[in-house]
C-alpha cells in the first residue's frame, strides 16, 4: 500500500480551494498557505482523480508478497447444533465447489462438536474432499474460544486459501476472532464470490444498507475469510455415492479451555419465520388502515402465503417485527412475492430481490419497486386485489363443481 503525498510547491490559493471542495469527506484543509489532509481521509483518492493534476499523488510502498501457492483449498466451516447442520452449510459447499474448480483446489469441511460421525459421513455426499473433524465432549456446546482454537488449528495445519463461514450468530462471532489471529481480511455477508486464477477471491458485498456494492479482495494475506448469509447461494446437490475422506483432528488440553460457561439454553418459541416462506404477500404504506389488512390477509390465505411488511408498518405497530422484510428486518428468497402498496425503498428491496418471481402492485408508475419487480401492475390495490380474490375463489368453486 502507500500514502497520499501533497506537493506544496504546486499549491496556490485557487488550487487549494478546488482541492478542499472536491474531498467528499471534508478531509482536506488549507491553513497558513499549506494544504493538509486530516483524519477524515478515507483514501478514496477522489482528490487525485478529480483534483488539480499532480497536487496530490499516491506513493506506492512495496510490501513483501506472500507465497500464495502455500495456501490451497476452499474450506467451509460446517456449523452444526445438536447433531444437525445449519442449512447455510449446504449452500457454502455448493459455492465452494465452484470456487475450487477454477484452480483445481480441494474442498474442505471443518466440523467441530461431539459425536460427529454421522454428520461427517453426510458431508461426503456433498463434494467434499476432506472433512476435518474436531470431535470432543468438550466441544459439545458452542463456546467461543475452544471453537476458535479448533478453527485456528485447522488453518495452521492445513493452510486453506479460502475460509468460508455462514453469517449466522455463531459464524459472525467465530470468523472475526480467527481472522484476527491470522491478521487476515474478513469480508462479511458476501453476495457474490468469484475465484481469480491467482487464487485471489473476489468478494462482493452490500454496504450502506445495500445502497452500495463493494468489490473486495484480500491480495496479500491468507486465508481469505468471508461470511455468507443463509439463502444467498444455491445449495449443493446431494450425491448418491459418498466420496472423500474423514480426517480426525484434535486439540491439546489447553485448546479446550475457556472460562465461559453455558448455564442454560432455552429454545425460543417457534418464530414466525418469513425467511423460510415459499410464497409471501408483503404490504406497505399503500394500505391505509389496519382494518384494510384483511385484504392482504385474504390474498395470503388464498395463496398459502406468509404475510410480511415494510418497516413503516412495524413502526405503526401493525405487525410483529419478525414480519419485516428489509435490511433491518429479514432477508427473504421465496418462489413468489407479491408486494402491495410498497414503493420499494432500497432497504426493503435488498431484503427481497432474491425472490424467483416478484409481482408488484402500486399506484405510482415511477415507484422504485417496479425496477425490481418482474411483473409490475400500475393500479390501486384496493381495486385490483378484490377482483383477484374473486377470480381465485371462482376458480376454486369451479374446480369443486367439476
Amino acid at each position: 500500500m502507500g500514502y497520499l503525498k501533497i506537493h506544496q510547491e504546486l499549491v496556490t490559493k485557487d488550487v487549494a480551494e478546488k482541492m478542499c471542495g472536491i474531498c467528499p469527506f471534508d478531509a482536506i484543509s488549507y491553513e497558513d498557505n499549506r494544504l493538509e489532509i486530516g483524519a477524515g481521509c478515507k483514501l478514496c483518492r477522489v482528490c487525485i482523480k478529480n483534483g488539480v493534476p499532480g497536487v496530490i499523488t499516491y506513493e506506492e510502498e512495496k510490501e513483501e508478497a506472500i507465497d500464495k501457492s502455500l495456501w490451497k483449498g476452499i474450506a467451509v466451516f460446517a456449523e452444526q447444533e445438536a447433531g444437525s447442520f445449519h442449512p447455510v452449510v449446504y449452500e457454502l459447499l455448493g459455492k465452494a465447489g465452484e470456487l475450487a474448480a477454477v484452480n483445481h483446489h480441494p474442498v474442505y469441511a471443518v466440523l467441530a462438536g461431539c459425536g460427529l460421525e454421522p454428520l461427517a459421513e453426510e458431508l461426503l455426499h456433498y463434494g467434499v474432499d476432506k472433512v476435518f473433524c474436531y470431535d470432543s465432549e468438550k466441544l459439545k456446546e458452542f463456546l467461543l474460544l475452544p471453537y476458535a482454537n479448533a478453527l485456528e488449528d485447522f488453518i495452521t495445519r492445513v493452510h486453506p486459501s479460502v475460509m468460508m463461514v455462514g453469517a449466522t450468530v455463531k459464524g459472525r462471532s467465530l470468523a472475526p476472532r480467527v481472522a484476527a489471529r491470522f491478521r487476515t481480511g474478513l469480508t462479511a455477508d458476501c453476495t457474490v464470490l468469484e475465484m481469480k486464477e491467482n487464487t485471489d477471491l473476489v468478494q462482493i458485498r452490500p454496504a450502506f444498507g445495500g445502497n452500495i456494492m463493494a468489490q473486495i479482495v484480500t491480495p496479500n494475506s491468507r486465508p481469505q475469510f468471508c461470511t455468507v448469509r443463509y439463502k444467498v447461494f444455491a445449495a449443493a446437490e446431494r450425491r448418491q455415492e459418498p466420496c472423500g475422506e474423514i480426517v480426525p483432528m484434535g486439540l491439546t488440553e489447553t485448546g479446550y479451555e475457556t472460562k465461559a460457561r453455558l448455564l442454560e439454553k432455552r429454545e425460543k418459541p417457534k418464530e414466525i419465520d418469513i425467511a423460510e416462506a415459499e410464497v409471501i404477500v408483503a404490504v406497505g404504506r399503500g394500505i391505509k388502515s389496519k382494518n384494510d389488512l384483511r385484504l392482504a390477509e385474504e390474498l395470503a390465505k388464498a395463496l398459502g402465503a406468509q404475510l410480511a411488511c415494510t418497516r413503516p408498518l412495524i413502526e405503526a405497530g401493525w405487525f410483529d417485527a419478525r414480519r419485516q422484510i428489509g435490511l433491518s428486518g429479514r432477508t427473504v428468497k421465496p418462489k413468489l412475492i407479491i408486494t402491495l402498496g410498497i414503493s420499494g425503498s432500497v432497504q426493503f428491496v435488498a431484503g427481497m430481490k432474491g425472490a424467483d418471481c416478484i409481482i408488484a402492485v402500486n399506484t405510482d408508475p415511477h415507484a422504485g419497486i417496479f425496477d425490481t419487480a418482474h411483473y409490475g401492475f400500475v393500479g390501486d390495490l384496493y381495486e385490483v386485489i378484490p377482483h383477484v380474490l374473486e377470480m381465485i375463489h371462482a376458480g376454486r368453486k369451479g374446480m369443486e363443481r367439476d
Partner: protein
Amino acid sequence: MKILVCIKQVPGTTAVEVDEKTGTLKREGVESKMNLFDLYAIEQALILKKQYGGTVDVITMGPDQARAVLMEALYMGADRGILISDRALAGADVLATSYTLAQGIQWSGEYDLILCGKQTTDGDTAQVGPETAEFLGMEHVSNVLKVLKVEEGSLEVLENQENEVRRLQLPLPCLLTMEKDANTPRLPSYKRKLEMGDRGVEVISLKDFKDKDTSHYGANGSPTRVERIFPPEKNTARQMYEGEPKDLAASLGQLLKERKFI
C-alpha cells in the same frame, strides 16, 4: 466497575449513491449521527453504572467531527470521551480498525467490561467488536439481550441465538456486543449539556499508542482492498401492466395460474 463503550459516527442515512464516473460515494449534504446500535450499548453501560457504581468511558475513531457522538454519549451520562484521530488511520478495514481500537483502549485504561453495538449501519459487518476482543485477549459474546448480573470476576448475560436464548457466564474483563432493542436508550440530558459544554473529550493519535508502527494502521494495516464500489444491479427483465383494475386483476390471476400458484 470500569466500563468502556465503543461507538461510531455514521452517515445519518444509508441512502447514499455512487458517483459512477469516479466510483466513489456521493456524500454531499449527508448528515452524521451516532450509530443506532451503539445507543443500546451506552444505555446498558449506564444501567450497570447505576446498579454497581463505577465509570463509563466512551471511545471512537474518526475525524474531529466524530467528537459530536462522544459529546452525545457524555450528555447521556458517560463520564469521559476518547477520540482517536490520525490521518494515518485512513482507509482502515475491519482488522486495522479493531487493532486501532484495541490500542486506544489499552492507552485509555484497564476496564472490567467493554460494550459495543451489535453492528454499524454503514458497514453492517458486526465484526469489529469480536476482532477487538481478540486483540485485547478477552472473551466476548455477540448479540447480547441483557446483562443479568455482575459478580466478583464474572457476569451473566443472555445471548440471542437464531433458535434459542443462551444464558452464559463470562469471566471479567470481557467484551459484549449489544442486540438491537435490548433496552430503551435514554435521551441526552440538556442539563448535562449546559454543565459540560464541549468539555470531556480527550483526543489521542498514533503517537500515544504502544505500537507506533504505521504499517499496522489505516490502509497499510488493512489486508482487504476495495477494488471498486458500484450501485446495485437493477432487474431489467420486467413487464408492466396498466389499465382498468379488472383487466389488471385478470392479468395477475392469469400470471398466478401460469406459474401454478393457484
